[in-house]
């Protein structure tokens, strides 16, 4: 195995339940972030979201 392969390789058979739980949560969080970025930064959402910021200026 090259150094890089050794560095990046994973012994999947040695993964414990906790390792899997951690891996799955990490991957889900990653996609969660991607979805949030997409939902928030879509140009079509711009007007609707930016309108929110004016509301508090007249709340009292």
């Amino acid at each position, binding site marked *: 195995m090259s150094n890089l392969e050794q560095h990046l390789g994973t012994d999947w058979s040695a993964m414990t339940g906790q390792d899997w739980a951690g891996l799955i949560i990490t991957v889900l*969080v990653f996609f*969660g*972030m991607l979805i*949030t*970025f997409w939902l*928030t*930064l879509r140009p079509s*959402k*711009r007007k609707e*979201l*930016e*309108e*929110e*910021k*004016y*509301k*508090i*200026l007249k*709340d*009292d």
Partner: protein
Amino acid sequence: MDTTAKPQYDNGVVQYLTVGAVAFLVLGTFMGTFAAAQLAWPALNFDIAEITFARLRVMHTNTVIYAFGGMTLMATAFYTVQRTNGVKLWSNAMAWWTAILFTIGLLAVVVTISLGMTTGKEYHEQEWPLAIAIAVVWTLYTFNFMMTIASRNKETHPNVYVSNWFFMGMMIAITYLYVVNGLAIPVSLFRSYSLFSGVQDAMIQWWWGHNAVGFFLTAGFLAIMYYFVPKQAQRPIYSYRLSVIHFWALMFGYVWLGAHHLQYTALPDWTGSLGAVISLAMIIPSWGGALNGMLTLSGAWDRLRTDYILRFLIIALAFYAMSTFEGPVMASKTVNALSHYTDWTIGHVHSGALGWVAMVSIGALYHMVMKLWNTEMYSMKLINFHFWLATIGTVFYIVAMWVSGIMQGLMWRAYDEYGTLAYTFAESVAAMHPYYAMRALGGLLFFSGAAVMLYNVVMTIRMANAKSTSQVEAHA
């Protein structure tokens, strides 16, 4: 001013919490200054167990974080949730109970710590009966806040403003972090043993410890920033979408950082690397958020010349940006090898605690005092004076700690040509003396600013009360 057209909110409890927060700022910074002076001049311990450095330090952290920080968070949360949702508190009585029990609980915490009762877990020193009481009070606070949002008129207020999200994120995260880290087996009324031990104990402790910073001292105070910066500047926040990204990135990201406090310990090496990498990644949302706040002023920077309250809020953002850059640098293994266990950490903590948390709170507290008592401040000049005392005090503090911290790190690792250590530990302690004196001076300036604020707030309230009494008499 005409108040009849204004919506009616539950202001009494917010007034109580606002004044309480200012009083605890004075008390907490007094303890900090005293502790700093003890490090410079140890005779100030006076051989009195209840106020020796070891106890005073923990009394200081509990007073500034929980009593001052916690009361500020309660005051601002109850203030903003009503205004952003256009409703009164879901339960004013519950809010009063929360505020009073919180005050009593925290005074009890400070007294028991001074008597030597502690779990020994940092930021979680409260022994189990008090820890349970605090958890219950926190739950009441959270419940009331959420129910207030739920009770809004969804036709007039279909969406929930972003400051409320930050508050809710903080409330939920702190609830489970505090409870899990506090799991313990009581053996007597004021003695308990943690359920965790060894490496797990360390991991859980810093999972809590860093998130106390990330959620309590950051997310909560960002909620304050997202409401009070636009209100004080009378301009909308620069980008609402950026605030949404800021929120989710903090919520997803912060929980992974804790292990950066445990580099080069018995923890598996990869956990420290993970902590360091995510710390680095957090610079992006943190700076995005800081810029979002600062750019709110774009086109109106001249306001800073005349609006002293806005100055507190904006300099707080500058310190927020600075410490969220410094933190990730210190999380990297190379820098951590030098900085860990030194005063550099203390300097970093206080650039966040004084520069960010205290400054943004002070700005919000002044703003609320004027709104809640429907008056101008007794003296605007004193606010300006306070601003300079606080800023110069903070700079003195952090510069002293940078120098002493880096010096300590270098002295501890220096060795001579035979491979023996060049300095004894005692020599490194002696070398710190001038910097400890400088920090005590910085603290004194910051504390004096807090005392000036208390005076100004008390005089403002007296002035407002006298005015309303004379108005009532004139009508009669």
